[in-house]
């Protein structure tokens, strides 16, 4: 498989293995309000329900196409694939299935792209790939993405969507939390910004590591963002959950995100952040 390809090209007959943006989107019933939406409308609305505004999970390539300048994205570390470190039976099959379903090698796509001409390292997670869970590959790719930013003096933008650590990799997946957070610390030491875009859902070990370490944290509207799962809180501790608990709006109110930005305005917002951090991204702290 080629390690580099371009994304966002107009030429839909591109012979590379990159799928056309939104090629996977089909007619859908909104999970939240059960409104039926035609494919064309859904693509036009960037997979946001026109009825209730629910921001549906997106394929990373589709999301990248909505964020970066046409043809500017070059993927890296695409080749990394998962092993079965604690020999869980059925894990390989599960990975094969997930690869087919999501059209990805694992639950994150990383690369370099530009937004209005300003470069950023970009990592975008896929909830479709085993619930966006973080095992060794996701941890390694996020770490490489952050360290690429550190190495090349580029801001790093990570779009999260994850149910947490990948249980099939046991203790190794727990350690990815330390690994990605350590990379964020090194980036910090160089004075290079880390921007986090939290999408539905971002929970567990991803929330308790790099997802909460952004210099600026942006959430999509209505995204579930939290550490413990709602069923765990309700079930184990018999606590009643308040209205809107762990949603973006709740996290904004509690002070854990800087702003809520609708999908249609995300590119503009990131562009503004890249522009305003241009001088800082040269690493004045380390001088």
């Amino acid at each position, binding site marked *: 498989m080629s*390690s580099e390809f371009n994304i966002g090209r107009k030429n839909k007959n591109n012979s590379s293995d990159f799928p056309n943006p939104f090629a996977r989107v089909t007619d859908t019933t909104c999970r939240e309000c059960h409104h039926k939406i035609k494919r064309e409308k859904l693509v036009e609305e960037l997979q946001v329900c026109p009825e209730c505004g629910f921001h549906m999970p997106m394929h990373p390539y589709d999301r990248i196409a909505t964020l970066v300048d046409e043809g500017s994205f070059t993927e890296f570390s695409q*080749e*990394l*694939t*998962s*092993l079965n*470190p*604690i020999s*869980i039976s059925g894990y390989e099959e599960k990975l094969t299935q997930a690869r087919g379903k999501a059209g990805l090698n694992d639950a994150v796509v990383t690369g370099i792209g530009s937004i209005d001409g300003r470069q950023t390292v970009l990592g975008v997670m896929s909830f479709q790939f085993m619930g966006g869970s973080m*095992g*060794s*590959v996701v*941890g*390694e790719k996020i*770490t490489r993405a952050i*360290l690429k930013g*550190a*190495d090349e003096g580029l801001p790093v933008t990570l779009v999260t969507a994850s149910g947490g*650590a990948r*249980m099939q*990799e*046991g*203790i*190794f997946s*727990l*350690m*990815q*939390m*330390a*690994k990605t*957070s*350590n*990379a*964020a610390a*090194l980036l*910090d*030491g*160089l004075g290079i910004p880390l921007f986090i875009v939290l999408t539905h859902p971002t929970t*567990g*070990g991803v*929330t*308790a*590591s790099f*997802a*909460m*370490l952004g210099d600026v944290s942006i959430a999509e509207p209505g995204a579930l963002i*939290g*550490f*413990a799962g709602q069923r*765990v*809180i309700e079930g*184990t*501790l018999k*606590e009643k959950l308040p209205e809107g*608990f*762990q949603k973006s709006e709740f996290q904004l109110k*509690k*002070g*854990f995100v800087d702003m809520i930005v609708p999908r249609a305005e995300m590119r503009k917002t990131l562009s503004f952040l890249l522009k305003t951090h241009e001088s800082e991204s040269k690493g004045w702290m*380390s001088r």
Partner: protein
Amino acid sequence: MDESVIQSKIEEIKVLAEKENINISKELDHLKAKYAPSSEDTWEKVLLARNIDRPNTLDYINLICDDFVELHGDRHFGDDPAMIGGIGTINGQAVTFIGHQRGHNMKENIERNYGWAYPEGYRKALRLAEQAEKFHRPVVTFIDTAGAYPGVNAEERGIGEAIAVNLKKFSVLKTPIISFIIGEGGSGGALGIGVSDKIYMLENSIYSVISPEGFASILLRDAERAKEAAEIMKVTAQDVDEFGIVHGIIPEVPGGAQIDPAFTAEEIKKTILKDLKALMSKTPNQLIRYRSKKIREIGHVNENNAKVQDLFGIFGKVFGRS
């Protein structure tokens, strides 16, 4: 000899000793330890790791330190009794201790929230770690939790953020950190004070990404299959050591550390003193490089000939060439 026979013999001796007013509790403990089944069974280890009589953080601190003062509070919200910390001396060397605190009975456990810490617990831990860093005092952490508290209040106060910040800052703390998993090392709540230069597991401790019960209910679709889950997940000290994630195993007497806490405490103390000798002579940059490199290498991926980044270039940029 059959176990029930030994038990009845022990009871007989107890009654006799009480009658004669002789203290034989120590001898009895050793007798029990001698005949306790030396456990190869994963589930038994899980139960031992969670045993209510098992020495907890403050027990070890009291056994190890010449003196100890506890320090309280995160300076933002409150003081979390499930996470304790303070300054102690070991053979005169000042050390900052941080650890999850469980109780030995129901009353203590309610007070300590069973060692499930809140965000303010993790923030207290970080405050004390940074205080230690300021005075180049080494940090020793004791990990003993089923996990961070999964409740509404913990979420409202940002438990995810609190753990994340600890992972980040402990990973580049400019003073030595040594960690011991003394009982249960559960998930992010354990890791939240577990990023360190040296990490050890007690012989009957466990370390896992999720509790065996959680794993069973999610992946095996039956919470009752926790025993089986514990086997599959490979949670014992011996498993995790084999994975190369910890630096070694601290021995306990047969039957578990609760039988002879002083024995395990002495082993922990020796380990701390040995490691500090090596770690205290390192420069902060050397410490952080080694710690980062070790963390960086954990994980199993199929590279498919992907180019691996040169880490040292980045370390050089961050910390200079020293």
